């Protein structure tokens, strides 16, 4: 799998490139600006790119804008957006604007080799990745407790992983339970929360996030 990296901090960029290579991916390019990124993606599209939110020139949301552009022009390229801060509203906007093939992770999450490897693979194949911190923060809010209290602890675990964008198989492996059991949990969750999101993983993530953020 070919992976492109864009970040204006050279130290981080090079460290990440080494890590990505160590994990067995091919580093297609490692650049510092949005222009270089877009040019590289245009000439030889990789399977996935890792983009920092804050990039030159204004250091505000260039990464998000670039992600949207790549997703609309080259839908086969997955985009993993990294940020020093993660916000539910940003996650929801990324999903709403781009649908599948996007990921949103805290920057320091990439030091976790399994998480990084898993995230790259998932977005490259059209999956969705949402940072666990976003999900746990939404789950810990008091407002939804009434409905969420009806879930069993196991169901809450399944709900968290679902919101992070994990597939049924991955949830089963993570929790050491069978495929059928996962499906049962999921249908119980949906009926308790009165959600009807369909089978697609990204729609499921969007529905769950919207529910958790919901006012």
């Amino acid at each position: 799998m070919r992976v492109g990296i864009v970040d204006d901090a050279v130290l981080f960029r090079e460290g990440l490139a080494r890590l990505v290579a160590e994990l067995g991916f091919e580093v297609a390019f490692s650049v510092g600006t949005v222009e270089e990124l877009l040019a590289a993606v245009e000439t030889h599209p990789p399977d996935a790119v890792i983009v920092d939110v804050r990039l030159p020139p204004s250091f505000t949301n260039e990464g998000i804008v670039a992600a949207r552009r790549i997703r609309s022009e080259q839908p086969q390229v997955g985009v993993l957006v990294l940020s020093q801060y993660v916000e539910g509203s940003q996650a929801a906007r990324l999903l709403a604007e781009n649908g599948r093939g996007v990921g949103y992770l805290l920057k320091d999450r990439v030091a976790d080799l399994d998480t990084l490897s898993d995230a790259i693979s998932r977005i490259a194949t059209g999956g969705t990745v949402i940072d666990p911190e976003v999900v746990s923060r939404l789950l810990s809010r008091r407002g939804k407790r009434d409905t969420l209290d009806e879930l069993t602890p196991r169901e809450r675990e399944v709900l968290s992983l679902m919101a992070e964008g994990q597939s049924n198989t991955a949830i089963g492996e993570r929790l050491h339970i069978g495929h059928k059991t996962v499906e049962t949990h999921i249908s119980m969750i949906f009926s308790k929360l009165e959600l009807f999101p369909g089978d697609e993983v990204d729609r499921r993530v969007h529905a769950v996030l919207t529910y958790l953020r919901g006012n």
Partner: protein
Amino acid sequence: MGYVVGASVVVLVWMTGLIFSFSIEPVEYSNGYSSGLGQPGFDWLGFVRDIAPAWAFGIAGTIAWRRRPTNRIGPLMAIIGASLVIWGLQGLSIPPLVSLGLWMSQGPQASGFLLGVLVLAYPSGRIVSRLDRAWIALGLGWLMIVQFAWALATPVGLWGCIDCRPMIVVWYHEGIRLALQNLSVLSFLALAVVLFALLIRRWLSANATARRVLAPVWLAGALVPAVAVTRAIIDTTSERFMGVVRVPIDFMGVFLRGRVPLAVWDALPWVVAASLLLVPIALLWGLLRARLGQAAVSILAIELRQPGRTTSLTESLRRALRDSSLEVLLWSRPAAEYLTTDGTPVPTPVATPKRAVTRLDSDDGPLAALVHDPFLEEQRSLVDGVSAVAQFALENERLHAEVKAQLEEVRASRERIVRAGDEERRRVERNIHDGAQQRLVSLSLALSMAQAKAAKASPEVVETLAAAEVELKEAIGELRELARGIHPAILTEAGLRAALESLAERSPVPVTVHTNLDGPLPPLVEATAYFVVAEALTNAARHASASTVSLTADGTDGWLRLMVDDDGHGGADPARGSGLRGLLDRVAALGGRLSIEPSGTGGGTRLHAEIPCA
């Protein structure tokens, strides 16, 4: 000036007596007063009609001179009064005086020219415009050359009196006399037309205040030449005009005589007299207005003393001086510059032809400046009276304006301080983000790398590295929270709406968010709103034990309005909590308001903030 007035009055009295005495002698004159006093048929009405305008001018001129000794309008009116009766000299049968009377009176009279001068000079008594000066020069030329020559060439005085021989009849020849007479009438007509044009020009360029004051005088002033000219045409149609000139004037006379009823004809002298009377009356009325102005000074004095005065000082001064365009500028001593009444600094006013400036000083230095219509320059005493009366009020207003200006300066400096603080926060956050955060994350990457490499060699090293990585993650997390507290990155990344949603997400109390925001607001406003909401949510959760919070942000009409309602047990007090106190200052520094009050439902707290976005 006094001599001029005195001489004019003497002439008036003398001439009145003279004319009266002709009128009582049984005479051979074919004048209007066919028989003398005490004799049947003495035309009292005619006598009074011819004398009254002259006396009206004389009296009005004397009063005007007494009231405004430096203004030439009074003496000028007195001269006009004398010139209106100077024709009486002809009755003395002394040739030089007969000539003088003839020169000044016969046909288009000299007083017509003097009236023109009066109208042009009113109200200042000065002739400023070059065009006006040119008109007067032309008029003098007409009087001194054309009219004088005609007087010398005319052998017979008024009323066809045989004894009333003019002084010299050097060039007497009926043809020359007629030619001079025609020339005189026509030049006078031309002068009258030009005068009309000058009056119209002045009227068009005058502002409302000047028009109001000048209107009656001009009306009368314009009426007199009009009527005098008509009369002159009628008088001279019996004489023979020469050549081409004759045709239109003769024709007009014949035409009028044929068409106009005799009664109208007879009424003409009355119309002339009445319109002549209007001029001094209008001027007297102008003087009475000035006296009303004196009353306005007293009214102003009372008005300014009233404790609960609602009208502004500017408004009161405008009313007292009858100038709706008047502006009051107040001198600020600390800033050494003029301020408007709301404390805005303005450049020192300079007098222009359209705006006059009256500077007022107190014992301690400059006090104020009134910028007003130049017409008020003529009401110097009124302006001085009003200024004296308003002295204390002006001093008061001056201090107010000074305080307002200082307040504005303090507000601006407060805003600058907040802005500088805000920029500093952004800078610190950016430095943390680009520096320490990046380095620590890079370090954690290196640690991961090291773990991967050491996995095969030494499990103990891996364990140590894993422990270090946990520590490092803690450190990164703490640094992240620190940076977020300094300046929320989400504000610059995604705007106020996302930032408020982020606050709501992080709040342990469920928050419903309603936003109505059109695009980005100024960064300082957004940051302030963020910190206000953050503090309100913290208070709701920590101190008020609220179970729900409702947050509304509306930024569509040039103001950002925030409302945070909770259902807790209240108790938020800006006086105690330093967080709220600081935010109150911060919002006020931006010219906004922040209030905390019990919310309508069940004892919760409502925080309400309004911040201008301009």
